[in-house]
């Protein structure tokens, strides 16, 4: 991601990014035990809604997919289904130590250790689990990244689909998602990277 590409964003894109960052909707799908820190963040004390972040219930309406905590292989299969249903631009936030390097369940036979092998991750939040103050700071960091135009990891899924798909197959085998990623990538003009 060269800096020259970023500074050459047109004025229109900068304005849109500035407006877009003020309204992010997270998918209220609590994948693991880290999700227990989300209700305090949404309610009166820490009030996430003042940043424009609201919980939404279906993947089609959400921008942020929060992987809160450990992700077992069984859940990963469903999370891939959900991720592919989301409408781009979309941001995956790895929440908690388990998504970074296995966390507390590092020696378990059925949880994945490193989330960014299966999905392109925008941001990791360390902690077991991160407190609402950390969540709010993390979301602010995400908002800043969107503002600067760096939050484009969703394109990475189209560009490097072979890499992600290979890891997904290795983890849980074949799955029918009704989304043809390669042809979608060509349709939206995202070229595949030459690896």
């Amino acid at each position: 991601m060269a800096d020259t590409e970023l500074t050459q964003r047109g004025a229109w894109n900068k304005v849109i990014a500035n407006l877009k960052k003020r309204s992010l909707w997270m998918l209220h799908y609590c994948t693991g035990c880290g999700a227990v820190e989300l209700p305090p963040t949404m309610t009166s004390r820490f009030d996430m809604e003042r940043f424009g972040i609201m919980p939404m219930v279906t993947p089609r309406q959400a921008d942020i997919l929060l992987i809160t905590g450990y992700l077992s292989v069984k859940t990963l299969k469903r999370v891939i289904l959900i991720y592919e249903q989301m409408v781009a631009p979309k941001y995956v936030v790895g929440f908690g130590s388990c998504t970074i390097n296995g966390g507390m369940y590092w020696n378990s036979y059925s949880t994945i250790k490193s989330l960014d092998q299966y999905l392109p991750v925008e941001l990791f939040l360390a902690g077991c689990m991160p407190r609402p103050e950390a969540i709010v700071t993390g979301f602010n960091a995400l908002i800043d990244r969107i503002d600067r135009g760096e939050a484009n990891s969703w394109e990475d899924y189209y560009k490097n689909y072979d890499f992600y798909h290979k890891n997904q197959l290795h983890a849980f085998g074949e799955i029918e998602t009704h989304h043809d990623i390669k042809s979608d990538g060509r349709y939206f003009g995202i070229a595949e990277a030459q690896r």
Partner: protein
Amino acid sequence: MSGQSKTMDTDRPAAALGAARSAADLVVAIAADANVAGFSVKGPRRVEGRVDAASLHSFASALRTRVGFEHLSAISCVDWLADGQFELVYHFWSYRDNCLVSAHVRIARDSASMETITDLWQPASFFERDIHEMFGVTFQGNTDLEKYILTDWAGPPPMRKDFVSRDFAHDHFEFKDYEPSWDDLVTGGYHGSRGVAEGSNE
């Protein structure tokens, strides 16, 4: 026992004790009657003992119908690697007498197989499927031994003692080479391949 077990007054602990002891004695008597050795009363509400694999079904049936142990609390499995045996423990509870009976059954570890008790308690199939998935014990007579916990699992039954979870995790998953520096206060320090989070205080 039927006269003593329904007291509901302040005498209840003593009466329950008395009732439990008589239920326990009854259990021990049934065990002796069914030619099952080694039952003993461990406390006012606990009876424990060993049962043969072959006699367990009739023992459980007798417990249920003659002594009133209507509740199957759980079936659990212990892996005795050194002895080459699995130990299935059946926990039965009596609502009337507040007494727990745990029947320990030893079966051979290789091609482990045991008779099912789902004809007595249909929900026992839940426990039997769990033990089948996690230990590899086949329950004869249970037609519904489908996987429900590890639905995409292709490896050996993971709760066996000779399955080392850490080695399996190292073989099948890749870890990051990750040395965080805790100097940056907020979110700095992780410089992995994706998603560098720059804190808002820069």
